[in-house]
């Protein structure tokens, strides 16, 4: 078992996070505010029509794709996990 240098760990990780966040903010400032699909289309040069106004979701969080299918697949996965866990 080795001794963990917590101070060194936190400094190293903190510096990395700050550097990445700084670069990311620069990239965001240069590219401007846009949705994920719009950002991708603009990056590769696809000129799609105006994005359809979807639901604003809860506090801006919303589901990609069909919410009903999402709920069904997620419920199935959770049930499968429970079965595997109980069997284990």
């Amino acid at each position, binding site marked *: 078992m080795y001794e963990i240098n917590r101070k060194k760990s936190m400094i190293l990780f903190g510096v990395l996070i700050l550097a990445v966040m700084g670069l990311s903010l620069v990239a965001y400032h240069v590219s401007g505010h846009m949705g994920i699909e719009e950002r*991708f289309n603009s990056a590769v040069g696809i000129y799609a029509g105006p994005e359809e106004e979807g639901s604003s979701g809860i506090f801006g969080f919303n589901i990609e794709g069909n919410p009903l299918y999402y709920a069904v697949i997620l419920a199935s996965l959770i049930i499968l996990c429970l079965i595997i866990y109980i069997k284990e």
Partner: protein
Amino acid sequence: MAHIHLEDGAFSLQWVSIWWILSLILVCLCMYWMRKMKNNNNNKVLTIAGMCTAASFAIFQVNIPLFGGVHMNLTPLIGILGGPAVGGIIVFIVNILSAAIGHGGWGLIGANTLVNITEVSVAYFTYRGLAKAKLSSFSRAGIATLAGLMLGNITMIVIILVSGIQGVTQSITDILYGLSLLAGVNMGVAAIEAVLTGYLISYIQKVRPDMLQEAEPLV
């Protein structure tokens, strides 16, 4: 996280087939590796795989209102908990399920699986490799997440540049510039995912250290 968020038809049929074949070969290799592992492991791997698949699918479909809209998919966490073999299969399943609900095109599953396998593998090997650096598990997991997601973004850019986008007149330099900015924004989310993964891994190490057996062979 990196994910090629384009519609079907963006890549030519030739490139769609190439990325699909490559990803299927990798998934088959993962299955073969997993089969070998099964001899000296138990149902724990299966439980972790199921849990990771559900968590990754659940979070990946949520559009987070940050920088205009971003996604997370927990691929580095999957890599650290399950390893590259199990992780490779999980990301393939999550990509198929995502396409099934209308998030991402069916033709891009192959390319996206390759991007996600890169994230899973790089995170796993970075986390393992940092064991000798005497860093806390929080920092190791956080750094592994950043490394995995950065390499994932690079893979995404390479795949798009190699494939080319159908019906686009932009030069490769312009596309590279646009995708670099996109990757830069993605890395902002990677920083948040790194902190989240760091907390989750350090918590798991406290309460269920046996779950980290795959990535902690030296401890």
